[in-house]
Protein backbone atom coordinates (compact mmCIF):
# COMPACT_ATOMS: atom_id res chain seq x y z
CA UNK A 1 0.00 0.00 0.00
CA UNK A 2 2.72 2.42 1.05
CA UNK A 3 4.85 1.39 -1.90
CA UNK A 4 1.92 2.02 -4.23
CA UNK A 5 1.59 5.55 -2.97
CA UNK A 6 5.27 6.22 -3.59
CA UNK A 7 5.04 4.75 -7.06
CA UNK A 8 2.04 6.84 -7.88
CA UNK A 9 3.72 10.17 -7.30
CA UNK A 10 7.20 9.13 -8.31
CA UNK A 11 6.47 7.51 -11.61
CA UNK A 12 2.87 7.82 -12.65
CA UNK A 13 2.19 11.34 -11.49
CA UNK A 14 1.53 13.39 -14.61
CA UNK A 15 3.49 16.60 -14.80
CA UNK A 16 0.85 18.72 -16.52
CA UNK A 17 -1.97 18.15 -18.95
CA UNK A 18 -4.18 20.04 -21.41
CA UNK A 19 -7.86 19.35 -21.98
CA UNK A 20 -9.60 20.57 -25.11
CA UNK A 21 -13.22 21.34 -24.42
CA UNK A 22 -15.85 24.02 -24.39
CA UNK A 23 -17.35 24.54 -20.95
CA UNK A 24 -18.99 27.58 -19.48
CA UNK A 25 -17.64 28.90 -16.22
CA UNK A 26 -19.25 31.53 -14.02
CA UNK A 27 -16.80 34.20 -13.04
CA UNK A 28 -17.58 37.11 -10.71
CA UNK A 29 -17.58 39.30 -13.80
CA UNK A 30 -19.81 37.11 -15.94
CA UNK A 31 -19.87 33.87 -17.87
CA UNK A 32 -17.05 32.73 -20.11
CA UNK A 33 -16.59 29.76 -22.38
CA UNK A 34 -13.33 27.98 -21.72
CA UNK A 35 -11.66 26.44 -24.75
CA UNK A 36 -8.68 24.78 -23.03
CA UNK A 37 -7.91 23.79 -19.47
CA UNK A 38 -4.24 23.57 -18.57
CA UNK A 39 -3.70 21.55 -15.41
CA UNK A 40 -0.36 22.51 -13.88
CA UNK A 41 -1.05 21.37 -10.31
CA UNK A 42 2.21 20.53 -8.61
CA UNK A 43 4.35 22.17 -11.28
CA UNK A 44 6.73 25.00 -10.46
CA UNK A 45 7.87 27.92 -12.59
CA UNK A 46 8.75 28.19 -15.41
CA UNK A 47 6.75 25.19 -16.62
CA UNK A 48 3.23 26.67 -16.22
CA UNK A 49 4.22 29.90 -17.97
CA UNK A 50 5.90 28.12 -20.86
CA UNK A 51 2.97 25.73 -21.31
CA UNK A 52 0.47 28.60 -21.13
CA UNK A 53 2.32 30.34 -23.94
CA UNK A 54 2.34 27.13 -25.92
CA UNK A 55 -1.41 26.61 -25.55
CA UNK A 56 -2.05 30.27 -26.36
CA UNK A 57 -0.34 29.74 -29.69
CA UNK A 58 -2.89 27.08 -30.61
CA UNK A 59 -5.90 29.25 -29.74
CA UNK A 60 -7.78 31.81 -31.83
CA UNK A 61 -8.23 35.43 -30.80
CA UNK A 62 -10.83 35.76 -28.06
CA UNK A 63 -10.70 32.14 -26.90
CA UNK A 64 -10.26 31.55 -23.20
CA UNK A 65 -7.75 29.34 -21.43
CA UNK A 66 -8.12 28.15 -17.85
CA UNK A 67 -4.93 27.47 -15.89
CA UNK A 68 -5.00 25.42 -12.70
CA UNK A 69 -1.99 26.06 -10.48
CA UNK A 70 -1.08 25.69 -6.83
CA UNK A 71 2.11 27.70 -7.21
CA UNK A 72 1.49 31.23 -5.92
CA UNK A 73 4.43 32.70 -7.84
CA UNK A 74 2.96 31.41 -11.10
CA UNK A 75 -0.47 32.81 -10.40
CA UNK A 76 0.91 36.19 -9.50
CA UNK A 77 2.95 36.50 -12.65
CA UNK A 78 0.02 35.85 -15.02
CA UNK A 79 -1.05 39.53 -15.45
CA UNK A 80 2.53 40.42 -16.36
CA UNK A 81 2.75 37.41 -18.65
CA UNK A 82 -0.44 38.43 -20.46
CA UNK A 83 0.98 41.92 -20.82
CA UNK A 84 4.10 40.49 -22.44
CA UNK A 85 2.39 38.08 -24.85
CA UNK A 86 -0.49 40.35 -25.79
CA UNK A 87 -3.26 38.48 -24.02
CA UNK A 88 -5.81 39.52 -21.44
CA UNK A 89 -5.90 38.36 -17.86
CA UNK A 90 -9.58 38.03 -17.03
CA UNK A 91 -9.79 36.69 -13.51
CA UNK A 92 -8.05 34.66 -10.84
CA UNK A 93 -10.26 32.55 -8.61
CA UNK A 94 -8.99 30.94 -5.42
CA UNK A 95 -10.20 27.45 -4.68
CA UNK A 96 -9.41 25.62 -1.48
CA UNK A 97 -5.85 24.64 -2.33
CA UNK A 98 -5.22 26.02 -5.80
CA UNK A 99 -6.09 28.86 -8.12
CA UNK A 100 -8.00 28.96 -11.39
CA UNK A 101 -6.68 31.63 -13.71
CA UNK A 102 -8.64 32.75 -16.77
CA UNK A 103 -6.89 34.31 -19.71
CA UNK A 104 -8.07 35.32 -23.13
CA UNK A 105 -5.99 35.45 -26.27
CA UNK A 106 -5.67 38.93 -27.76
CA UNK A 107 -6.48 42.36 -26.42
CA UNK A 108 -10.05 42.39 -27.74
CA UNK A 109 -12.49 41.23 -25.09
CA UNK A 110 -16.17 40.70 -25.75
CA UNK A 111 -18.55 42.58 -23.41
CA UNK A 112 -19.42 39.54 -21.30
CA UNK A 113 -15.74 38.61 -21.05
CA UNK A 114 -14.81 41.82 -19.32
CA UNK A 115 -11.42 41.52 -17.63
CA UNK A 116 -11.15 41.92 -13.90
CA UNK A 117 -7.87 43.02 -12.42
CA UNK A 118 -6.44 41.41 -9.33
CA UNK A 119 -7.55 38.45 -7.31
CA UNK A 120 -11.08 37.45 -6.64
Amino acid at each position, binding site marked *: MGMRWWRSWLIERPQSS*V*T*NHSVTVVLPTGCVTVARTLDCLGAACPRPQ*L*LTMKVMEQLHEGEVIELLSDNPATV*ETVPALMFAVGGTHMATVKDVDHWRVYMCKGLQVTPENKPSEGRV
Partner: protein
Amino acid sequence: MNEESVLQAKRLFVDRARERNLRPAMTIVGLVALGSVAALSVDTRFVYLLVYAWFGVIYGLLLQYGRFCMASAVRDLFAVGVPRMAVGMLIAVALFSLTAATVQAAGFSTFAPHPLGWHVILGGLIFGFGMVFTGGCASGSLYKAGEGNVGSMLVVFAISFSQAIIVTAGGWVDALAPASWQVSAAAKDMPPELTATEGWFDLFTAGYIWDLKGTTVAETMGMEGTLAGAFIANALFSAILPALALLVLIYVFYFRRNYLRREKITTPSLGNHLDGLWAMITSSKSTALAGAGLGLFAGMQMWITGALREHYGIFNFGELLEAMGYQNGLSLQGTVFDPGYWYITTQEAQWGGWILNQLGVENLDNIFFGLDNGLPNPLLNAPGFMSIGIILGAAVMAHLRREFKWKLPSLETAVFALIGGTLMGIGARIGMGCNIGAFFATVTNGDLSGWVFLAGMVGGGWLGVKAFNTWLEWRSSRAGECDF
Protein backbone atom coordinates in the same frame (compact mmCIF):
# COMPACT_ATOMS: atom_id res chain seq x y z
CA MET B 1 -27.75 34.59 -7.42
CA ASN B 2 -27.69 38.33 -7.32
CA GLU B 3 -24.49 40.29 -6.96
CA GLU B 4 -24.94 41.02 -3.29
CA SER B 5 -25.39 37.44 -2.23
CA VAL B 6 -22.30 36.45 -4.24
CA LEU B 7 -20.33 39.11 -2.41
CA GLN B 8 -21.71 37.98 0.91
CA ALA B 9 -20.79 34.37 0.27
CA LYS B 10 -17.33 35.44 -0.76
CA ARG B 11 -16.83 37.45 2.40
CA LEU B 12 -17.94 34.54 4.56
CA PHE B 13 -15.53 32.25 2.73
CA VAL B 14 -12.65 34.64 3.24
CA ASP B 15 -13.46 35.12 6.94
CA ARG B 16 -13.57 31.38 7.55
CA ALA B 17 -10.29 30.93 5.75
CA ARG B 18 -8.61 33.64 7.79
CA GLU B 19 -9.75 31.97 10.96
CA ARG B 20 -8.41 28.67 9.79
CA ASN B 21 -5.04 29.96 8.74
CA LEU B 22 -4.23 32.23 11.61
CA ARG B 23 -3.80 29.21 13.85
CA PRO B 24 -0.89 27.47 12.10
CA ALA B 25 0.83 30.83 11.60
CA MET B 26 0.53 31.66 15.28
CA THR B 27 1.62 28.14 16.23
CA ILE B 28 4.88 28.58 14.31
CA VAL B 29 5.57 31.95 15.91
CA GLY B 30 4.73 30.46 19.32
CA LEU B 31 7.12 27.56 18.82
CA VAL B 32 9.95 29.90 17.82
CA ALA B 33 9.23 31.99 20.92
CA LEU B 34 9.17 28.89 23.10
CA GLY B 35 12.46 27.69 21.62
CA SER B 36 13.95 31.11 22.26
CA VAL B 37 12.93 31.04 25.92
CA ALA B 38 14.34 27.53 26.25
CA ALA B 39 17.67 28.62 24.74
CA LEU B 40 17.87 31.66 27.00
CA SER B 41 17.15 29.54 30.06
CA VAL B 42 20.19 27.42 29.18
CA ASP B 43 22.41 30.47 28.76
CA THR B 44 21.36 34.08 28.27
CA ARG B 45 24.29 34.56 25.88
CA PHE B 46 22.33 32.60 23.29
CA VAL B 47 20.62 35.92 22.62
CA TYR B 48 23.38 36.42 20.03
CA LEU B 49 22.17 33.35 18.15
CA LEU B 50 18.52 34.29 18.59
CA VAL B 51 19.10 37.62 16.88
CA TYR B 52 20.02 35.65 13.77
CA ALA B 53 17.00 33.39 14.17
CA TRP B 54 14.45 36.19 14.59
CA PHE B 55 15.90 38.27 11.78
CA GLY B 56 15.65 35.12 9.69
CA VAL B 57 11.93 34.95 10.50
CA ILE B 58 11.52 38.58 9.40
CA TYR B 59 13.46 37.95 6.18
CA GLY B 60 11.27 34.91 5.54
CA LEU B 61 8.08 36.96 5.94
CA LEU B 62 9.39 39.55 3.50
CA LEU B 63 10.82 37.08 0.99
CA GLN B 64 7.52 35.27 0.74
CA TYR B 65 5.58 38.51 0.58
CA GLY B 66 7.74 39.90 -2.22
CA ARG B 67 8.31 36.51 -3.94
CA PHE B 68 11.90 37.52 -3.72
CA CYS B 69 13.48 35.12 -6.15
CA MET B 70 16.40 35.87 -8.40
CA ALA B 71 15.72 32.73 -10.41
CA SER B 72 12.36 34.00 -11.55
CA ALA B 73 13.87 37.43 -12.21
CA VAL B 74 16.39 36.07 -14.70
CA ARG B 75 14.29 33.24 -16.03
CA ASP B 76 11.01 35.10 -16.60
CA LEU B 77 12.87 37.74 -18.55
CA PHE B 78 14.40 35.24 -20.96
CA ALA B 79 11.85 32.43 -20.95
CA VAL B 80 8.64 34.40 -21.28
CA GLY B 81 9.77 38.02 -21.67
CA VAL B 82 8.21 39.11 -18.36
CA PRO B 83 10.39 41.71 -16.62
CA ARG B 84 8.32 42.03 -13.45
CA MET B 85 10.60 40.27 -10.96
CA ALA B 86 13.81 41.63 -12.50
CA VAL B 87 12.42 45.15 -12.15
CA GLY B 88 11.42 44.52 -8.54
CA MET B 89 14.85 43.13 -7.79
CA LEU B 90 16.62 46.18 -9.25
CA ILE B 91 14.43 48.59 -7.30
CA ALA B 92 15.15 46.53 -4.20
CA VAL B 93 18.89 46.89 -4.92
CA ALA B 94 18.55 50.67 -5.12
CA LEU B 95 16.54 50.89 -1.89
CA PHE B 96 18.72 48.39 -0.03
CA SER B 97 21.84 50.41 -0.94
CA LEU B 98 20.46 53.42 0.91
CA THR B 99 20.04 51.55 4.19
CA ALA B 100 23.43 49.89 3.68
CA ALA B 101 24.94 53.37 3.25
CA THR B 102 23.30 54.51 6.47
CA VAL B 103 24.82 51.53 8.25
CA GLN B 104 28.26 52.33 6.79
CA ALA B 105 27.97 56.00 7.72
CA ALA B 106 27.03 55.04 11.27
CA GLY B 107 30.18 52.92 11.41
CA PHE B 108 28.75 49.51 12.26
CA SER B 109 28.93 47.82 8.87
CA THR B 110 30.28 44.28 9.01
CA PHE B 111 30.59 44.04 5.23
CA ALA B 112 33.83 42.83 3.62
CA PRO B 113 34.29 43.34 -0.15
CA HIS B 114 34.80 40.29 -2.34
CA PRO B 115 37.96 39.77 -4.39
CA LEU B 116 37.31 40.24 -8.08
CA GLY B 117 38.50 37.68 -10.62
CA TRP B 118 37.36 35.26 -13.30
CA HIS B 119 35.94 33.02 -10.59
CA VAL B 120 33.11 35.49 -9.93
CA ILE B 121 31.68 35.27 -13.44
CA LEU B 122 32.25 31.52 -13.69
CA GLY B 123 30.57 30.93 -10.33
CA GLY B 124 27.64 33.11 -11.41
CA LEU B 125 27.35 31.18 -14.66
CA ILE B 126 27.14 27.79 -12.95
CA PHE B 127 24.82 29.12 -10.26
CA GLY B 128 22.54 30.77 -12.82
CA PHE B 129 22.33 27.65 -14.97
CA GLY B 130 21.45 25.50 -11.95
CA MET B 131 18.77 27.79 -10.59
CA VAL B 132 16.64 27.57 -13.75
CA PHE B 133 16.25 23.85 -13.10
CA THR B 134 15.53 24.14 -9.37
CA GLY B 135 12.90 26.83 -9.89
CA GLY B 136 14.47 29.00 -7.21
CA CYS B 137 17.68 30.75 -6.23
CA ALA B 138 19.23 30.33 -2.79
CA SER B 139 16.83 32.72 -1.07
CA GLY B 140 13.91 31.67 -3.28
CA SER B 141 14.34 28.00 -2.41
CA LEU B 142 14.24 28.82 1.29
CA TYR B 143 10.99 30.78 1.08
CA LYS B 144 9.45 28.18 -1.21
CA ALA B 145 10.41 25.46 1.28
CA GLY B 146 8.39 27.51 3.77
CA GLU B 147 5.40 27.36 1.41
CA GLY B 148 5.45 23.58 1.80
CA ASN B 149 7.34 22.89 -1.40
CA VAL B 150 9.22 19.63 -0.83
CA GLY B 151 11.15 20.09 -4.10
CA SER B 152 12.65 23.30 -2.73
CA MET B 153 13.70 21.44 0.41
CA LEU B 154 15.57 19.04 -1.84
CA VAL B 155 17.30 22.04 -3.41
CA VAL B 156 18.48 23.24 0.01
CA PHE B 157 19.68 19.73 0.75
CA ALA B 158 21.62 19.56 -2.53
CA ILE B 159 23.14 23.03 -2.01
CA SER B 160 24.31 21.99 1.48
CA PHE B 161 26.01 18.76 0.50
CA SER B 162 27.46 19.82 -2.83
CA GLN B 163 29.22 22.71 -1.13
CA ALA B 164 30.41 20.58 1.75
CA ILE B 165 31.84 18.05 -0.69
CA ILE B 166 33.40 20.55 -3.08
CA VAL B 167 35.38 22.37 -0.38
CA THR B 168 36.87 19.12 0.88
CA ALA B 169 37.34 17.25 -2.40
CA GLY B 170 40.89 16.16 -3.12
CA GLY B 171 42.67 13.63 -5.28
CA TRP B 172 42.13 13.83 -9.01
CA VAL B 173 40.19 17.10 -8.86
CA ASP B 174 43.41 18.77 -7.68
CA ALA B 175 44.48 18.60 -11.31
CA LEU B 176 41.96 21.40 -11.92
CA ALA B 177 44.23 23.77 -10.02
CA PRO B 178 47.11 25.26 -12.01
CA ALA B 179 50.64 24.78 -10.73
CA SER B 180 50.94 28.49 -9.94
CA TRP B 181 48.23 28.15 -7.28
CA GLN B 182 50.20 25.29 -5.75
CA VAL B 183 53.31 27.50 -5.52
CA SER B 184 51.41 30.47 -4.16
CA ALA B 185 49.53 28.35 -1.60
CA ALA B 186 52.74 26.70 -0.41
CA ALA B 187 54.33 30.13 0.08
CA LYS B 188 51.60 31.13 2.54
CA ASP B 189 52.47 30.49 6.13
CA MET B 190 49.72 28.10 7.06
CA PRO B 191 49.03 26.29 10.33
CA PRO B 192 50.41 22.72 10.22
CA GLU B 193 46.95 21.26 10.96
CA LEU B 194 45.81 22.32 7.52
CA THR B 195 46.75 20.72 4.26
CA ALA B 196 46.45 23.84 2.17
CA THR B 197 48.48 22.44 -0.69
CA GLU B 198 46.05 19.54 -1.04
CA GLY B 199 42.47 19.79 -2.17
CA TRP B 200 41.61 21.98 -5.13
CA PHE B 201 39.42 24.35 -3.15
CA ASP B 202 42.24 25.03 -0.70
CA LEU B 203 44.57 25.71 -3.60
CA PHE B 204 41.91 27.95 -5.13
CA THR B 205 41.50 29.86 -1.85
CA ALA B 206 45.13 30.16 -0.73
CA GLY B 207 46.79 30.16 -4.11
CA TYR B 208 44.37 32.36 -6.02
CA ILE B 209 41.70 34.19 -3.99
CA TRP B 210 44.08 35.42 -1.31
CA ASP B 211 46.27 37.01 -3.98
CA LEU B 212 43.34 39.08 -5.21
CA LYS B 213 42.02 42.18 -3.58
CA GLY B 214 38.47 43.28 -3.04
CA THR B 215 37.53 46.90 -2.91
CA THR B 216 34.58 49.25 -2.72
CA VAL B 217 33.83 52.24 -4.91
CA ALA B 218 34.35 54.53 -1.92
CA GLU B 219 37.80 53.09 -1.34
CA THR B 220 38.77 53.47 -5.01
CA MET B 221 37.67 57.09 -4.96
CA GLY B 222 39.48 57.74 -1.69
CA MET B 223 36.24 58.50 0.12
CA GLU B 224 36.16 55.57 2.48
CA GLY B 225 34.60 56.12 5.86
CA THR B 226 32.96 59.43 4.90
CA LEU B 227 29.30 60.24 4.51
CA ALA B 228 29.81 61.01 0.81
CA GLY B 229 31.70 57.75 0.40
CA ALA B 230 28.77 55.78 1.80
CA PHE B 231 25.94 57.57 0.01
CA ILE B 232 27.49 58.87 -3.22
CA ALA B 233 30.24 56.38 -4.02
CA ASN B 234 28.81 53.18 -2.55
CA ALA B 235 25.07 53.71 -2.90
CA LEU B 236 24.66 56.02 -5.90
CA PHE B 237 27.56 54.94 -8.10
CA SER B 238 27.70 51.26 -7.21
CA ALA B 239 24.02 50.42 -6.86
CA ILE B 240 21.49 53.08 -7.85
CA LEU B 241 22.91 54.27 -11.19
CA PRO B 242 23.69 50.77 -12.51
CA ALA B 243 20.23 49.63 -11.41
CA LEU B 244 18.61 52.58 -13.19
CA ALA B 245 20.61 51.90 -16.35
CA LEU B 246 19.45 48.28 -16.31
CA LEU B 247 15.84 49.37 -15.72
CA VAL B 248 16.01 51.57 -18.82
CA LEU B 249 17.49 48.70 -20.83
CA ILE B 250 14.73 46.34 -19.67
CA TYR B 251 12.12 48.95 -20.57
CA VAL B 252 13.54 49.42 -24.05
CA PHE B 253 13.89 45.72 -24.83
CA TYR B 254 11.05 44.08 -22.92
CA PHE B 255 8.36 46.56 -21.94
CA ARG B 256 8.19 49.43 -24.45
CA ARG B 257 6.60 47.64 -27.40
CA ASN B 258 3.75 46.07 -25.43
CA TYR B 259 3.17 49.21 -23.41
CA LEU B 260 2.82 51.41 -26.48
CA ARG B 261 0.58 48.89 -28.20
CA ARG B 262 -1.67 48.63 -25.18
CA GLU B 263 -1.88 52.37 -24.70
CA LYS B 264 -2.44 52.76 -28.46
CA ILE B 265 0.44 55.21 -28.81
CA THR B 266 1.87 55.27 -32.32
CA THR B 267 4.29 58.19 -32.10
CA PRO B 268 5.66 58.09 -28.58
CA SER B 269 7.16 61.18 -26.98
CA LEU B 270 9.72 61.17 -24.20
CA GLY B 271 6.87 61.77 -21.77
CA ASN B 272 5.12 58.59 -22.96
CA HIS B 273 8.31 56.65 -22.40
CA LEU B 274 8.71 58.04 -18.91
CA ASP B 275 5.10 57.09 -18.17
CA GLY B 276 5.86 53.61 -19.49
CA LEU B 277 8.97 53.32 -17.35
CA TRP B 278 6.93 54.35 -14.34
CA ALA B 279 4.18 51.84 -15.18
CA MET B 280 6.83 49.13 -15.38
CA ILE B 281 8.33 50.12 -12.04
CA THR B 282 5.01 50.31 -10.20
CA SER B 283 3.93 46.91 -11.49
CA SER B 284 6.54 45.31 -9.21
CA LYS B 285 5.42 46.98 -6.01
CA SER B 286 5.44 44.06 -3.60
CA THR B 287 8.94 42.91 -4.59
CA ALA B 288 10.28 46.46 -4.31
CA LEU B 289 8.56 46.90 -0.97
CA ALA B 290 10.03 43.63 0.29
CA GLY B 291 13.46 44.77 -0.91
CA ALA B 292 13.18 48.02 1.01
CA GLY B 293 12.07 46.12 4.10
CA LEU B 294 14.88 43.60 3.72
CA GLY B 295 17.37 46.47 3.45
CA LEU B 296 16.00 48.09 6.56
CA PHE B 297 16.12 44.91 8.63
CA ALA B 298 19.51 43.81 7.28
CA GLY B 299 20.84 47.18 8.45
CA MET B 300 19.19 46.69 11.83
CA GLN B 301 20.68 43.22 12.12
CA MET B 302 24.19 44.57 11.50
CA TRP B 303 23.61 47.22 14.10
CA ILE B 304 22.22 44.89 16.79
CA THR B 305 24.88 42.23 16.18
CA GLY B 306 27.56 44.94 16.39
CA ALA B 307 26.11 46.19 19.68
CA LEU B 308 26.04 42.64 21.09
CA ARG B 309 29.66 42.06 20.05
CA GLU B 310 30.62 45.20 21.89
CA HIS B 311 28.57 44.17 24.91
CA TYR B 312 30.26 40.77 25.18
CA GLY B 313 33.67 42.11 24.11
CA ILE B 314 33.99 39.70 21.18
CA PHE B 315 34.69 39.88 17.46
CA ASN B 316 33.12 36.56 16.55
CA PHE B 317 30.46 34.20 17.91
CA GLY B 318 33.18 31.52 18.28
CA GLU B 319 34.58 33.37 21.28
CA LEU B 320 31.16 33.38 22.92
CA LEU B 321 30.68 29.67 22.18
CA GLU B 322 34.03 28.93 23.80
CA ALA B 323 33.12 30.99 26.85
CA MET B 324 29.89 29.03 27.14
CA GLY B 325 31.85 25.78 27.02
CA TYR B 326 31.21 24.66 23.46
CA GLN B 327 34.58 24.05 21.85
CA ASN B 328 33.63 21.49 19.26
CA GLY B 329 33.48 22.70 15.71
CA LEU B 330 35.40 25.93 16.19
CA SER B 331 37.96 26.79 13.52
CA LEU B 332 41.70 26.91 14.23
CA GLN B 333 41.31 30.61 14.93
CA GLY B 334 38.58 29.86 17.47
CA THR B 335 35.95 31.32 15.17
CA VAL B 336 32.78 30.21 13.40
CA PHE B 337 30.95 31.67 10.43
CA ASP B 338 29.37 34.85 11.76
CA PRO B 339 28.84 37.44 9.02
CA GLY B 340 26.52 39.66 11.06
CA TYR B 341 24.28 40.24 8.06
CA TRP B 342 22.15 38.47 5.51
CA TYR B 343 23.88 35.39 4.11
CA ILE B 344 22.63 32.05 2.92
CA THR B 345 24.93 29.50 1.34
CA THR B 346 27.86 29.27 3.75
CA GLN B 347 25.78 28.12 6.71
CA GLU B 348 24.05 25.59 4.47
CA ALA B 349 27.50 24.23 3.55
CA GLN B 350 28.18 23.89 7.28
CA TRP B 351 25.07 21.77 7.78
CA GLY B 352 26.19 19.35 5.08
CA GLY B 353 29.77 19.46 6.34
CA TRP B 354 28.75 18.74 9.91
CA ILE B 355 26.69 15.71 8.91
CA LEU B 356 29.55 14.37 6.79
CA ASN B 357 31.89 14.98 9.73
CA GLN B 358 29.61 13.00 12.05
CA LEU B 359 29.66 10.20 9.51
CA GLY B 360 33.43 10.07 9.84
CA VAL B 361 34.59 12.26 6.96
CA GLU B 362 37.72 14.20 7.89
CA ASN B 363 36.86 17.68 6.67
CA LEU B 364 38.39 20.04 9.20
CA ASP B 365 41.82 20.06 7.55
CA ASN B 366 40.74 22.47 4.82
CA ILE B 367 40.70 26.24 4.80
CA PHE B 368 36.95 26.69 4.34
CA PHE B 369 35.85 24.78 7.43
CA GLY B 370 39.11 24.36 9.38
CA LEU B 371 40.49 27.89 9.22
CA ASP B 372 37.65 30.20 8.23
CA ASN B 373 34.18 29.08 9.15
CA GLY B 374 34.41 26.19 11.59
CA LEU B 375 31.95 23.33 11.64
CA PRO B 376 29.62 23.91 14.58
CA ASN B 377 26.79 21.64 15.62
CA PRO B 378 23.69 22.86 13.72
CA LEU B 379 22.09 23.59 17.11
CA LEU B 380 24.87 26.12 17.76
CA ASN B 381 25.10 27.49 14.23
CA ALA B 382 23.84 31.07 14.48
CA PRO B 383 23.57 31.89 10.75
CA GLY B 384 22.09 28.42 10.29
CA PHE B 385 19.22 29.51 12.48
CA MET B 386 18.81 32.52 10.22
CA SER B 387 18.14 30.11 7.32
CA ILE B 388 15.73 28.06 9.44
CA GLY B 389 14.10 31.31 10.49
CA ILE B 390 13.63 32.25 6.82
CA ILE B 391 11.81 28.97 6.17
CA LEU B 392 9.59 29.43 9.23
CA GLY B 393 8.90 33.10 8.52
CA ALA B 394 7.92 32.23 4.95
CA ALA B 395 5.64 29.50 6.30
CA VAL B 396 3.94 32.02 8.58
CA MET B 397 3.35 34.44 5.70
CA ALA B 398 2.20 31.64 3.39
CA HIS B 399 -0.35 30.49 5.98
CA LEU B 400 -1.60 34.04 6.50
CA ARG B 401 -2.03 34.48 2.75
CA ARG B 402 -3.62 31.03 2.37
CA GLU B 403 -0.80 29.93 0.12
CA PHE B 404 0.66 27.13 2.19
CA LYS B 405 0.33 23.68 0.69
CA TRP B 406 2.45 20.58 0.98
CA LYS B 407 3.65 19.92 -2.54
CA LEU B 408 5.47 16.73 -3.38
CA PRO B 409 7.65 16.96 -6.47
CA SER B 410 7.27 14.61 -9.39
CA LEU B 411 10.28 12.45 -10.14
CA GLU B 412 11.43 14.86 -12.83
CA THR B 413 11.14 17.89 -10.54
CA ALA B 414 12.99 16.05 -7.79
CA VAL B 415 15.84 15.09 -10.10
CA PHE B 416 16.03 18.66 -11.42
CA ALA B 417 16.07 19.97 -7.84
CA LEU B 418 19.00 17.75 -6.90
CA ILE B 419 21.05 18.37 -10.05
CA GLY B 420 20.28 22.09 -10.13
CA GLY B 421 20.93 22.44 -6.40
CA THR B 422 24.29 20.70 -6.79
CA LEU B 423 25.25 23.10 -9.57
CA MET B 424 24.13 26.05 -7.44
CA GLY B 425 26.29 24.80 -4.56
CA ILE B 426 29.32 24.49 -6.83
CA GLY B 427 28.67 27.91 -8.35
CA ALA B 428 28.19 29.49 -4.94
CA ARG B 429 31.56 28.26 -3.70
CA ILE B 430 33.44 29.26 -6.85
CA GLY B 431 31.71 32.63 -6.99
CA MET B 432 32.02 33.07 -3.21
CA GLY B 433 28.33 33.38 -2.45
CA CYS B 434 24.86 33.10 -3.88
CA ASN B 435 22.46 35.64 -5.32
CA ILE B 436 22.41 37.25 -1.88
CA GLY B 437 25.98 37.01 -0.58
CA ALA B 438 27.70 37.49 -3.93
CA PHE B 439 25.25 39.85 -5.63
CA PHE B 440 22.71 41.56 -3.43
CA ALA B 441 24.85 42.22 -0.37
CA THR B 442 27.88 43.24 -2.47
CA VAL B 443 26.49 45.76 -4.98
CA THR B 444 24.51 47.46 -2.25
CA ASN B 445 27.66 47.92 -0.19
CA GLY B 446 29.75 49.52 -2.91
CA ASP B 447 31.39 46.34 -4.15
CA LEU B 448 31.10 46.14 -7.94
CA SER B 449 32.05 42.45 -8.06
CA GLY B 450 28.36 41.74 -7.48
CA TRP B 451 27.44 43.09 -10.92
CA VAL B 452 30.01 40.72 -12.41
CA PHE B 453 28.35 37.85 -10.54
CA LEU B 454 24.98 39.04 -11.87
CA ALA B 455 26.35 39.08 -15.42
CA GLY B 456 27.49 35.49 -14.95
CA MET B 457 24.17 34.53 -13.37
CA VAL B 458 22.19 36.11 -16.22
CA GLY B 459 24.34 34.31 -18.79
CA GLY B 460 23.88 31.03 -16.96
CA GLY B 461 20.16 31.69 -16.63
CA TRP B 462 19.89 32.29 -20.37
CA LEU B 463 21.67 29.03 -21.13
CA GLY B 464 19.51 27.27 -18.54
CA VAL B 465 16.30 28.52 -20.15
CA LYS B 466 17.51 27.28 -23.55
CA ALA B 467 18.29 23.88 -22.06
CA PHE B 468 14.98 23.73 -20.19
CA ASN B 469 13.01 24.58 -23.32
CA THR B 470 14.85 21.93 -25.29
CA TRP B 471 13.97 19.44 -22.58
CA LEU B 472 10.27 20.42 -22.66
CA GLU B 473 10.20 20.11 -26.46
CA TRP B 474 11.77 16.68 -26.26
CA ARG B 475 9.34 15.59 -23.58
CA SER B 476 6.26 16.78 -25.42
CA SER B 477 7.44 15.24 -28.70
CA ARG B 478 7.73 11.92 -26.88
CA ALA B 479 4.52 12.14 -24.91
CA GLY B 480 2.27 13.36 -27.69
CA GLU B 481 0.26 16.51 -28.18
CA CYS B 482 -1.79 16.77 -25.04
CA ASP B 483 0.49 15.54 -22.31
CA PHE B 484 3.50 17.62 -21.48
